[in-house]
């Protein structure tokens, strides 16, 4: 599944933001044009990809946010929207009137929720309004950028709003050449322990989690891996991209942390597979013989057996070699 950025405008300013770096490099005014959405939909369709993820910035800031979703649905795509849930009354109302009754199998939202303690009050008020309207279609997402994070607040929100019982866990990665907050390699073990401390609460509330790219396997003990197996509904993986993101200016890149490296135009390719292959090879090239973020990765049998990719490529980039 590839991601399409509708706009680069955003309503928040998260310390870990992986997109921010990319976004400051390009014009914020750029929004995805209708013609380009049709082009992308055609590319997906001809590549036999039935899933499209929309993101931003904040995708709902695109003036045709609702129209685009409806359009893609009419073309039989499964649409998944990554949102902060922070929307003006007007946008929310338009979305509510047109999207609320759509089958969650066709349209889903992933609402990225920061701990209310760390964010502005009225920001969270808006998120709540969103959750109230779209609870049936929405699951949550949380980005980890420090090892003393909290998930209990999220479990409470899921229960209160009867959201889909799932949390997507993202790991904040370093963005080569930038200065964002991210989890350092030496904090990984502490992070693993912290994550496992929420096991009972999650398990008791039947909430599953999904690990996004860049997590590594050897920071968990076998017992912890067993628990993770349950928590992730048997979808445990320690992978690294390429994710494939399309910018509103029809550029394409591997994933946000690597967005400064080999950004191409969508018109350079004929299918999603070509794009995927290109960035897959690029990742391999960047890693070279280092294989993974740890020294021992190069001789790790889990890596050889494709059980763990060896962490996020972005940790391995010597930016001097790549900045164009």
């Amino acid at each position, binding site marked *: 599944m590839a991601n399409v950025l509708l706009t680069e405008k955003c309503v928040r300013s998260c310390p870990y933001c992986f997109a921010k770096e990319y976004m400051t490099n390009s014009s914020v005014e750029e929004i995805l044009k*209708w*013609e380009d959405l*049709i082009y992308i939909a055609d590319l997906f369709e001809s590549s036999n990809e039935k899933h499209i993820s929309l993101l931003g910035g904040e995708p709902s800031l695109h003036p045709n946010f609702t129209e685009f979703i*409806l359009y893609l649905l009419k*073309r039989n795509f499964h649409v998944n929207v990554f949102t902060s849930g922070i929307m003006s009354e007007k946008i929310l109302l338009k979305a509510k009137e047109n999207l609320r009754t759509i089958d969650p199998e066709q349209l889903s939202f992933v609402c990225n929720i920061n701990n209310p303690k760390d964010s502005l009050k009225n920001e969270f008020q808006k998120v709540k309004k969103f959750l109230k309207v779209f609870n049936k279609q929405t699951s949550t997402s949380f980005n980890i950028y420090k090892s003393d994070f909290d998930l209990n607040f999220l479990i409470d929100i899921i229960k209160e709003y009867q959201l889909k019982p799932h949390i997507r866990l993202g790991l904040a990665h370093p963005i080569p050449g930038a200065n964002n907050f991210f989890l350092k390699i030496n904090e990984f073990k502490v992070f693993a322990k912290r994550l496992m401390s929420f096991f009972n609460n999650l398990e008791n509330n039947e909430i599953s989690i999904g690990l996004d790219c860049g997590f590594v396997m050897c920071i968990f003990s076998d017992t912890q891996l067993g628990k993770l197996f349950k928590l992730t509904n048997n979808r445990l993986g320690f992978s690294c991209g390429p994710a494939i993101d399309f910018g509103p200016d029809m550029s394409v890149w591997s994933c946000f942390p690597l967005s400064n490296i080999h950004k191409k135009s969508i018109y350079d390719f004929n299918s999603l597979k070509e794009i995927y292959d290109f960035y897959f090879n690029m990742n391999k090239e960047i890693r070279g013989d280092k294989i993974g973020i740890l020294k021992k990765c190069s001789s790790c049998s889990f890596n050889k057996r494709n059980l763990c990719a060896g962490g996020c490529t972005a940790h391995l980039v010597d930016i001097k070699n790549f900045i164009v």
Partner: protein
Amino acid sequence: MDKYIIVSPYSTTVIDKFRERQFVILVNDFDNINEILECVNRNNFLVSIQVNLNSSLSSIDFNEKWDNVPLRIVVSDLGDYLTFHKKIDLIRKLNILFYFPINKIDNFLNIQILSSLGINCGFIISDGQLLDWGKLSELLYYYMYSKSKHSIIEPFDYIIQNNNKNDIFNNFVDYNNVYFNDPDYYIHIDSEQNISLSFENSKRNIFLDIGIDNIDSAKETKQYKNIIEDRHKHFIINHPCSYCPGWRICLGKFSYCLRSSNGCIEFFTELFNSKYILNNIL
């Protein structure tokens, strides 16, 4: 050739004068759609009802009962997308082709949206309109090279189909055919039963001197011969259109544009050569 197809406003008197004829009926609203179908098909065949509206597509109150009626609807634009969206499923069940005038720049996009959603559509160029050839080329590229399936866009579809035929006696394409405006195939009868060879002639009161019982003799008339001769006028005077690589499709329709730009040449050449590109020749 087969017999002329009659293009006329809805008039039972005209329709009932004929047997086993094909008809295109022109109306301005949806009041009598099913009645027209019934009336024409009693003794003749309905090719299409063309509804000329001055309003947006989204404002049309589509009716399930039209599912057997071949409709061409000329709209001003798409209108509100969200309203349109609610009607898509019904539209897809009906047999409709929507025409958009492309003197409105937004309609290029509207056509693309409709086509990509599987709804047949087309564009209309008004008389003497100075065209945005770049926009038209973009639409053509979409039509020809889009990676996934989409519905037809007229007149591209007609042109490409016919351009692919190698018929040495009809080695040009008059795409006015899709507008029921081709003197080789369509004959126009107005409400006063005047007969003419095109919408333009009808509008300018240039009528054929033949009776309604005798419409197939239209090809013997001076007017028809003038039209045929007109096709050669560019060659006779060595007009730039005569050596334009896109002539076989354009037939010099845009020679009035040549003063301001040569965009037509590139556009029609592309269209003409689409055959080789599509068939991967060299």
